[in-house]
């Protein structure tokens, strides 16, 4: 453990033999496409099929053909697989087509005409909150939360200073390089089988059972190699799997449905846009007295996961700070755009962006440096978070922060840049963010999942780990095999992690929320220890055995007893308390902690911002595999730099207008700085071999760190991301005008 075991499926990936869904081809297979609405809100009056297409050769599925419930089962039953009459967002699926000719079916899609009666759409969160036009429920609000700690209303009168700020973030596209896709087959005896690119096979199964009125054993879901996901393949795959399965059911043929990039970007989920308002009371010596926070996210047209995203964003909104009086009020709002959904960080990058910009503003108001102000207020062991979760581990956040600043040469650079900037049109600056990320499902989530894993020895003595955790690049196969091998005393190469197939693996919950290493790998560890114990009990194994002897023991045991299989089911650690009504208690099994430091140069002629150096220091419990862990942090930071400086979704009438890689810009190999990654490790007693979650953490810090650095470089305070060159130029010219104006009036 803690060693760089090579990625399990690396050889297949580098030799081009790994099988992604689009690499599959079945005899007689048809290609499926989705006909979508171009209207953001409307009533469908008629569907007309244009001339020049041999429609009799096509399989066509309409909402009225659906054999079961026309609802994508997830949390709230509001989203149809195919809109029956009412359109609630542009790109909403209305009709499905399949044909054996891929080019023809794509062309045919443009010859289906939806004749609609437009209704007034709502695109703006404030407009939605006003409820002048009601587009969802009674008030356009999917979910609200309120966290109350102490008495925030009592602090304002006596506070030395009150600092307010408003911060906002825009949508971000996950932009996994493999577009979404599914391949479905139908058989009257065995039911539906769907193979595809996905994070959560059991979510797909849960959504397809009511669609076809079939029991779980007749809805088989198999994950293929998955070319990136980042949350984008958490909930939307249920929709595509349903569509491909409907076409397969109606045609009786296998149907492959692969989105092209334009469709994937326009129609599938993105990160929720957000707005956060802070009002903070602070004493003259820089002690946080009260934090009043309002957090709102735009959920799009259907509820999907917005309530859950809101929950995480709300809990993270007060960050790693000790404050006795906190109120966080939040809302997830409906608008007529395609539903926003899961994306690495899941609400936390939004509220932490606001917080870590705002903490710099408060520091400035009290006349302290950002690091000194934070140090005076950071949580320590024994302190309680906004929800009242007491920090049990011996985390020294002020020390972590100092170490990160030292690694980045922070003080020297502050001074040096100040001198350099006097002479140069390129302004250099340095900034940082100090933050946390809760691992695993929020609150009672893990308790309610009852996750199960199996570990099974095979007749040849090798071992197989069975869980529903998917490999999507983050390293599931490798770390689960490492944990099993270490717990069993087996050779790493003798452990295989089965790719999820709902007929073969137990339900261990979804592969989300940084839960694989901390929660599921812990179950793998427990099941492995039980398996080893069974060998000891049978006398097949004695102390001091070698991996070779372990393998022989498995072989011998199976020859004697027929089967060697153990399971483990998640139990909440003792003393964990969570109140879902009041939002109080232990929000997460554990938090990971980080300090990220960004160095930037801002070209005051072109407005361009370049990140020149990046230090990412984090405490994530025990690091299971240093190469994979480093890769997770580097990749997360890269996405977060894109979020801060490059990636802008342009909306026109509720549709993404720049749904191409040509004009939605993510960082390339020449855009990123060297990302320097450092770990501190405090083993977490309830995590696998001491591990905590780390996959989402690196998405949270870069955006505020970079904007803090831009402020340090230019003196300009930006409160919105993405921060593009045109935004910088605009503010620079405003600043120049007001300086000239001041100079003029002084004269």
């Amino acid at each position, binding site marked *: 453990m803690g060693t760089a075991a090579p*990625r399990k499926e690396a050889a297949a990936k580098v030799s081009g033999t790994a099988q992604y869904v689009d690499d599959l081809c079945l005899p007689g297979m048809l290609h499926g496409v989705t006909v979508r609405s171009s209207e953001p809100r409307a009533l469908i009056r008629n569907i007309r099929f244009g001339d020049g297409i041999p429609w009799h050769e096509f399989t066509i599925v309409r909402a009225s053909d659906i054999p079961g419930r026309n609802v994508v089962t997830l949390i709230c039953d509001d989203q149809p697989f195919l809109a029956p009459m009412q359109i609630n967002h542009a790109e909403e699926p209305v009709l499905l087509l399949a044909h054996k000719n891929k080019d023809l079916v794509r062309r045919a899609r443009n010859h289906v005409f939806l004749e609609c009666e437009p209704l007034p759409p709502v695109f703006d969160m404030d407009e939605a909150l006003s409820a002048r036009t009601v587009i969802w429920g009674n008030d356009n609000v999917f979910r609200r939360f309120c966290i109350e700690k102490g008495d925030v209303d009592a602090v304002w009168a006596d506070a030395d200073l009150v600092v307010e700020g408003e911060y906002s973030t825009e949508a971000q596209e996950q932009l996994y*390089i493999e577009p979404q896709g599914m391949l479905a087959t139908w058989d009257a005896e065995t039911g539906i089988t769907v193979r595809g690119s996905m994070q959560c096979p059991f979510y797909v199964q849960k959504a397809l059972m009511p669609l076809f009125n079939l029991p779980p054993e007749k809805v088989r879901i198999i994950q293929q190699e998955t070319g*990136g996901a980042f949350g984008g393949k958490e909930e939307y795959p249920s929709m595509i799997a349903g569509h491909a399965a409907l076409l397969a059911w109606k045609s009786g043929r296998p149907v492959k449905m692969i989105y092209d990039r334009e469709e994937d970007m326009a129609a599938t989920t993105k990160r929720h846009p957000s707005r956060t308002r802070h009002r903070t009371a602070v004493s003259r010596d820089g002690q946080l007295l009260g934090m009043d926070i309002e957090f709102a996210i735009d959920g799009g047209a259907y509820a999907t996961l917005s309530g859950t995203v809101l929950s995480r964003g709300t809990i993270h909104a007060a960050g790693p700070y000790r404050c006795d009086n906190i109120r966080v009020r939040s809302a997830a709002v409906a608008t007529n755009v395609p539903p926003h959904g899961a994306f690495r960080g899941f609400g936390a990058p939004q509220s932490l962006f606001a917080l870590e910009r705002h903490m710099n503003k408060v520091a400035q108001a009290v006349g302290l440096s950002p690091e000194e102000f934070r140090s005076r207020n950071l949580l320590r062991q024994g302190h309680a978070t906004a929800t009242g979760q007491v920090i049990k581990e011996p985390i020294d956040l002020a020390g972590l922060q100092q170490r990160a600043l030292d690694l980045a040469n922070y003080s020297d650079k502050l001074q040096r840049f100040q001198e350099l900037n006097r002479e140069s049109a390129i302004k250099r600056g340095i900034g940082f963010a100090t933050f946390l990320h809760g691992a695993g499902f929020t609150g009672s989530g893990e308790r309610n999942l009852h996750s199960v894993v199996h570990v099974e020895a095979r007749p040849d003595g090798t071992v197989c780990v069975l869980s529903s955790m998917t490999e999507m690049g983050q390293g599931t196969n490798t770390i689960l095999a490492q944990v099993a091998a270490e717990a069993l005393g087996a050779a790493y190469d003798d452990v295989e992690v089965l790719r999820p197939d709902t007929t073969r693996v137990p339900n261990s919950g979804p592969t989300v929320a940084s839960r694989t290493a901390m929660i599921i790998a812990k179950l793998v560890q427990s099941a492995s220890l039980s398996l080893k114990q069974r060998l000891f009990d049978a006398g097949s194994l004695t102390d001091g055995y070698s991996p070779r002897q372990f393998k022989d023991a498995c072989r011998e045991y199976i020859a004697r007893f027929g089967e060697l299989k153990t399971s483990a089911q998640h139990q909440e650690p003792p003393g964990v308390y969570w109140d879902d009504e009041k939002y109080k208690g232990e929000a997460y099994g554990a938090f990971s902690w980080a300090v990220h430091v960004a160095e930037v140069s801002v070209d005051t002629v072109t407005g361009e911002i370049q990140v020149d150096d990046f230090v990412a220091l984090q405490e994530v419990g025990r690091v299971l595999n240093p190469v994979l862990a480093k890769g997770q942090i580097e990749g997360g930071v890269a996405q977060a730099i894109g979020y801060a400086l490059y990636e802008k979704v342009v909306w026109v009438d509720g549709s993404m207008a720049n749904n191409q890689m040509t004009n939605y810009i993510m960082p390339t190999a020449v855009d990123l700085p060297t990302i320097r990654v450092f770990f501190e490790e405090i083993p977490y007693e309830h995590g696998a071999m001491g591990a905590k979650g780390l996959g989402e953490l690196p998405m949270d810090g870069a955006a505020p760190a970079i904007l803090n650095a831009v402020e340090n470089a230019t003196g300009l305070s930006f409160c919105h991301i993405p921060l593009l060159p045109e935004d910088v130029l605009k503010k620079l010219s405003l600043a120049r005008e007001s300086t000239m104006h001041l100079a003029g009036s002084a004269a």
Partner: protein
Amino acid sequence: MGECAVRFTVNGEPRTVVTHPMKRLLDVLREDLNLTGTKEGCGEGECGACAVILNNELVNSCLVPALEASDATICTVEGLATDGELHRLQREFIKAGAAQCGICTPGMLMAGVHLLSRCPNPTLDEIREGLSGNLCRCTGYMRIFEAVQNAAWQSE
């Protein structure tokens, strides 16, 4: 327009396909020759997942019509290993953790191999430049740079 016969050499083997002359080389490789290691990420020449080496040039096969590949020598990811032994860059990708989800990996390898053939001992800036036509959403590129650097040192 009817179909035509296009002849070329792929991974050392002479091949002939009868195809529409404007069919994308990407689809010819994947559908007609079952070489599915070459991937489609965007279909517009931005992401480089479909990169192959054609007559010693790195090209995005989604932008190359089949006819343009007439008589060409093409190398895809399936052609990197020799006699079952991985190319040194493939081995370094495994060691450095340069492949995460793996979907950009075939194109990234082709770009890396092409770079090393032109520039056996590239600087970090040359590596960045050489891979700048290939997008990776998982790694932040750092592990990939390391793999290319390590493979370069072995070639000396």
